[in-house]
């Protein structure tokens, strides 16, 4: 067996390819692990949507006709953020063993986690769009804003995930704080109520939460045929880019410290 020369000169493009292959491998492994495989990416969120639908629309009799699409847009976009940040934030800590065997830039791990959840989200989001069309919400010109909104949410996820991932190995306690924060966030992000329906003096505070603003923007486009309010969206994008820069820099700074932490 002849050994081959190591020609992987261009490290950056190598790491990009590595991230992409690892995303593929994660998705493959995850679907191979269960009996019905990747169907779980659909069944799992649909089940959780069914639970909320049952509680809010049937038991509490809230909202009326447009409530189900209203709820689903909020749930699907929030779930993407929740899952991707939760997995991305712990990615470096969980790959300590790998980082002790071979040098890898730490950013590889949160990137893989975020992209893996993004692929799963894409499947569910496609289903959501289909559901909306069937329910009589037509595709209109403001749909052009959709790629921008999706891009901005991805930036937001990447920013929070990379910043948390950089400190999580030092302070594992953050994982508990994070899961509790998401529980609170779930109730204040306007998933099953409209922020305009709460007393006015609280609205400003609720809108400081970026995911609440993004959910409102998605609803404007998908349910009301309107352009989103651009000011909050642009603010979120700008702050997220700054957050990514900070997170990436911190991770690069501690690349060779992470392997020392258990």
């Amino acid at each position, binding site marked *: *067996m002849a050994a*081959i020369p*190591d020609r992987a000169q261009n490290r950056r493009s*190598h790491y990009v390819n590595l991230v992409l*292959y*690892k995303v593929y491998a994660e998705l493959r492994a995850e679907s191979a692990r269960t009996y019905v495989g990747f169907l779980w990416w659909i069944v799992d969120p649909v089940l959780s949507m069914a639970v909320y639908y049952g509680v809010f629309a049937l038991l509490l009799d809230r909202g009326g006709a447009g409530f189900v699409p209203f709820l689903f847009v909020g749930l699907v976009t929030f779930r993407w953020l929740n899952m991707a940040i939760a997995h991305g934030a712990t990615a470096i800590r969980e790959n300590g063993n790998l980082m*002790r*065997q071979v*040098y890898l830039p730490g950013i590889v791990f949160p990137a893989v986690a975020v992209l893996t959840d993004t692929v799963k989200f894409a499947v569910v989001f496609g289903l959501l769009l289909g559901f909306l069309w069937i329910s009589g919400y037509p595709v209109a010109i403001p749909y052009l804003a959709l790629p921008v909104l999706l891009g901005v949410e991805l930036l937001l996820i990447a920013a929070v995930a990379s910043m948390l991932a950089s400190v999580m190995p030092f302070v594992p306690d953050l994982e508990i704080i994070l899961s509790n924060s998401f529980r609170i966030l779930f109730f204040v992000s306007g998933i099953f109520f409209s922020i305009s329906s709460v007393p006015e003096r609280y609205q400003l505070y609720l809108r400081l939460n970026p995911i609440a603003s993004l959910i409102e923007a998605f609803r404007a486009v998908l349910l009301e045929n309107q352009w989103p309010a651009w000011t909050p969206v642009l603010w979120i994008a700008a702050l997220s880019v700054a957050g990514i820069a900070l997170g990436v820099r911190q991770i690069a700074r501690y690349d060779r410290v992470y392997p*020392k932490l258990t």
Partner: protein
Amino acid sequence: MDSATLLSLRNVGVSFPRVRPGRGFRRQRDAFWALKDVSFDLYEGEALGVIGRNGAGKTTLMRLLAGILVPDRGTFTSSGVRSSLLSLNVGMVPHLSGRENIVLSGMLLGLERRQILDCMDAIIAFAELEEFIDDPVSTYSSGMKARLGFATAFQIDPDVLLIDEVLGVGDAAFAEKSSGVLREKIRSHKTVVLVSHNAQRIRNLCDRAVWLDKGVTRAEGSTDEVITQYSDFLEESSRSGRR
């Protein structure tokens, strides 16, 4: 540092944060120096043996040479060479097939996907896994996993190859085959650092040796010299231990 020196360590120390249970629920935090004072040079084309007892800091030293860790004190100078640790089964995922794991593990070790695909057949043949290569690795026996891991890792060809005790793996026949090709590689390869607590193995394979004890280099020089000192030291310490 002259042109033939690839890596050079001067009074290098590496510390790890350590948390120990204190009184009650309190915890004590301090630093543990796995390497305290390490100095030696690695020259182009040589096979350097690193010998020492358990806990001498051999694994930490290898991680330092591989670029996984950086020194917390002292100086570590590199002439810009790429060095990699020969590690088996890096990042392998049980639910993926042997073939997919070869690609994944190879990429993690720094090989391009194209390179791995080019020698896929050779890897599979060497691992003797033709029949099972498309089955999930979770169904493999430990011997099959070891063969897959060795055949994949053996493909890396960095400027400096770092080997930490892994010579023969798998069952008796494969252990002989794998240690055979590895010996050949060590003898023909440009530059190798081999870590072992086995003096005989270092004597057989290496041109020069370094003796590491409790994070300190106790000797550097020709293999015979260093091993003689090391053996004397072992005898001495076992005698004083018996007394």
